[in-house]
């Protein structure tokens, strides 16, 4: 292993493989740039839209089926919707808020889940959520929305006072508590973005590392030992990656629900 490691920088297969985690342009795709921002349909962009398309298509098909006893895709979608409703939305919010906010939280959950999972599709797969800019966008949208509805519902001053000043804290503690609360508020979108990004990146890096072993051992006798082990681990980690994709979507949606609920009822 040490020998393999020291030889790596020269012709490391990891360079090639980790390149799969970086968005890249297709040769056939047009190059779009607006206001200095590259909006070209890179593999990341294509996979974001693929996730969006899958998300909408699957739900569209499921929603059109009206079987009394659900089967197939209708059954899967209804189970997932029920899961999000019961275990995420209604476990945090009251019934009225839950009913109002389920469409938003459900969309967050399913969109992130599909962005997490689409990277597991062989050949075309790229995990958009393994990019910090994608997760940061989602996290900021969620957090800014929570702040916006909090201020709209309670008034900006009341909202921030209730949010930054914990109830029943002695006044003498406030100079300490308010900065802590400000840091806590700033940490919310940051942690939301980094958690999802880091988990999805690590997940795919693991898969690439096992794939890298095969390339490193290629041409040597070690390939006969490394190939089956690497393939076995890749299969196991692919299944694990699907589980992580689901869990991370649950965590993101759950925290979204908490942040929105906190914004609706600040200081509680």
């Amino acid at each position, binding site marked *: *292993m040490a020998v393999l*490691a020291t030889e*790596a*920088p020269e012709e*490391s297969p*990891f*360079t*090639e493989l*980790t*390149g799969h*985690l*970086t*968005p890249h342009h297709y040769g056939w795709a047009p190059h779009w740039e607006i206001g200095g*921002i*590259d*909006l*070209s349909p*890179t593999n*990341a*962009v294509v996979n*974001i*839209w693929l*996730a*969006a398309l899958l*998300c*909408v298509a699957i*739900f*569209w098909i*499921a*929603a059109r*089926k*009206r079987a*009394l006893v659900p089967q197939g895709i209708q059954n899967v*979608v*209804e189970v997932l*919707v029920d899961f999000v409703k019961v275990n995420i939305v209604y476990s945090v919010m009251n019934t009225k808020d839950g009913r109002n906010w*389920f*469409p*938003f939280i*459900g*969309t967050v959950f*399913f*969109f992130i889940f599909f962005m997490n999972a689409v990277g597991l599709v062989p050949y075309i797969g790229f995990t*958009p959520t393994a*990019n*910090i*800019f*994608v997760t*940061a*966008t*989602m996290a900021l*949208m969620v957090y800014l929305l929570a702040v916006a509805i909090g201020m709209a519902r309670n008034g900006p001053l009341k909202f921030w006072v209730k949010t930054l000043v914990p109830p029943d804290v002695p006044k003498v503690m406030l100079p300490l508590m308010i900065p802590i609360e400000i840091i806590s508020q700033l940490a919310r979108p940051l942690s939301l973005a980094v958690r999802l990004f880091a988990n999805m*990146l*690590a997940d795919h*890096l*693991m898969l*690439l*590392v096992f794939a*890298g*072993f095969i390339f490193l051992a290629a041409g040597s006798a070690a390939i006969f030992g490394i190939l089956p082990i690497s393939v076995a681990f890749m299969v196991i980690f692919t299944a694990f990656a699907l589980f992580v994709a689901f869990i991370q979507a649950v965590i993101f949606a759950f925290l979204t629900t908490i942040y929105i609920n906190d914004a609706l009822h600040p200081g509680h």
Partner: protein
Amino acid sequence: MSSFVLLATEAAEGEGGFNPFDPEFGLVVWTGVAFLTVLYLLAKKVFPKLQEGLADRERKIADEIKAAEKTRAEAEKILADYKSRVAAAREETTGMIEEARAAAEKVRQELIARAEGDARLIVDKARKQLSGERERILSELEGSLAEWSTNIAAQIVQKELTPDSHRDLVEGFIADVRKSEAAKS
């Protein structure tokens, strides 16, 4: 394992390959647009339909449960009615059987009584006939016996008895026999 991950990352970075923090502002725009599109489609077009479908099913199931409960109540009512009818029929049948049994018993008793009466009449008649026959036989026997005994006695005593004294002796004997017969019956 982690050293390999680091190695891979460092190697890639060293060659300008992989940097997860490379600015990709295009992705920010596309993520936002894609999310808002999905949100619009799901929230406006799909989730309401899905919810409506679920509510419809809930309503349908509730209706069917209600209908099933109604049917069950009706079935229970019919069953109770049927049971009460069966019980009434059974009671009626039992009554009829009892009545038939009583009537049969009555007829039997009547027949027995009639048969006993007839038997008694027959026996009485037979007894009377027997009694008459006996009387007749006895009177016949009386005459014959007197004669036979006279003859026997004449042979035994020869000349000691006259026919009249012999007759008296025989009649006395017969009277004794009658007395003893009467005492027996």
